């Protein structure tokens, strides 16, 4: 599963209406690394993920090694929850890369989809409508879809924002499993406690990178201050 080259970002600037959201960012994510991106609101965290996923045009600089199979879970999924689709069908979208427009979904695919649902704790939900899922269950289903995408690089934008403690703990286990399988995982998070606990590497950014490296070093008080992380800025996130 290890991709050969690291995912590297060189002097990257991404701007919306000329206002930079990511400003002169340089660094790299090692293959198989598990990195948290933290920073205040508006720090460009989501924009960086979108840039890596190829969803926003790059202003300056470049991103290397972000080719191949990338799975991206956006922050506010634009999912239409009233759309009439069953959970297993929604999860099977993760097979797009394998089945594309026309190829059949085989028995093996269905077994994998069922296994993925079981792995996220949604066994028996196969034929429920997506609209009947709670926010936490929907996030679990989206994680099952990520599993089917079988990507070498997984980008998660605030994956635990709308879910309860138990769900986020379960989902974090899946993330750690992916890390164990050698996939590169990059997640935007707000919960510093969880970052310290589970993420070996951290990128702290506030438009410009403040610190990037091993989590304990990056989340040193001095760096947090530099990112204008005064204690009250954490109020809403912690």
């Amino acid at each position, binding site marked *: 599963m290890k991709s050969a080259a690291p995912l590297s970002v060189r002097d990257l600037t991404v701007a919306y209406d000329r206002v930079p959201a990511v400003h002169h960012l340089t660094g790299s994510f090692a293959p198989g690394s598990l990195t948290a991106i933290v920073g205040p609101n508006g720090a460009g965290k989501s924009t960086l993920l979108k840039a890596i*996923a*190829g*969803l926003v045009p790059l202003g300056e600089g470049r991103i290397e090694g972000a080719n191949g199979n*990338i799975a*991206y879970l*956006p922050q506010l*999924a*634009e*999912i*239409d929850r009233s*759309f*009439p*689709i*069953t959970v297993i069908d*929604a999860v099977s*979208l993760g097979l*797009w*890369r394998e089945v*594309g*427009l026309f190829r059949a979904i085989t028995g093996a695919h269905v077994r994998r989809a069922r296994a993925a649902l079981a792995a996220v704790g949604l066994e028996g939900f196969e034929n429920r*409508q*997506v609209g009947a899922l709670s926010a936490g269950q929907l996030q679990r289903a989206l994680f099952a*879809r990520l599993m089917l*995408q079988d990507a070498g690089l997984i980008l998660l934008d605030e994956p635990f924002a709308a879910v309860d403690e138990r769900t986020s703990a379960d989902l974090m286990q899946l993330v750690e499993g992916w890390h164990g399988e050698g996939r590169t995982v990059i997640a935007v998070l707000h919960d510093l406690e969880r970052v310290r606990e589970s993420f070996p590497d951290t990128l702290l950014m506030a438009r410009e990178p403040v610190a990037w490296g091993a989590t304990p070093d990056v989340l040193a008080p001095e760096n947090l201050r530099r990112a204008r992380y005064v204690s009250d800025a954490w109020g809403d996130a912690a």
Partner: protein
Amino acid sequence: MIYDMAIAPFVDYGFMRRALVACFALALGGGPIGTFLVLRRMSLMGDAMSHAILPGAAIGFLIAGLSLWTMSIGGLVAGLAVAFLAGLISRVTALREDASLAGFYLISLALGVLIVSTQGSNIDLLHVLFGTILSVTDDALILVASIATLSIVTLALIYRPLVIECFDPAFLRATTGGGTVWHFIFLVLVVVNLVAGFQALGTLMALGLMMLPAAAARFWAGAVWSLAALSTVLAFLSGFAGLLLSYNFNLPSGPSIILTAGLVYVASILLGTRDSVRTRYFPRAHFHD
């Protein structure tokens, strides 16, 4: 008695048979397309495009009178132009798409009525606005049937990305790098089907046989394929019943068909098995486990 009212008109009169076949073809194409229009919350878009067809058809009328082909081509071009322009304007300006669509369809309607009425009679205007399903020609039938065939085949080809784009557009963008092409193919299908419906039902009502059965189906069916199948059946039954109403009570055929579809829609809102008024106010007991 039932034979006299429901079967005999079609046995006795060729124009009734042709009208019925036209309804069948319109239902086959419009049912699935209408389903996706409803699921994509594009009813207003459909409305705007059906009106946009009018000035195009009117220009076709100016050139060659009540000619099937020039009016169809004119309508097609105008409908596509408005669909494209509305999308473009909402992307390059701050005006939201619904506002630009409403603007376009008002302009189109006024322009179309103006063109037809300066050059033709009021009868011509009524033809263009409300269609002539009882005098559908063989050429028109072939056109409508070809469009139904084209629609079903194309929908089958783009079914997966279209469903994904409705359900989770961000996922489609992230995995395939685009959804615009599917959206555009779908828009073309909508316009083509409206042109087909315009032959039979007129520009003002063509959308009715697409939207009303599809909206009604929402209250009964719970999967995309069953929605499409059910709205096709409902559209055809509305056409069948509407034609009979029109024949037996000497009513104009287009409005009879659309009103029948409207009746089905209202009945579905009230009585449907999913999220209808009935299930909301008279729910069955919930499960206790």
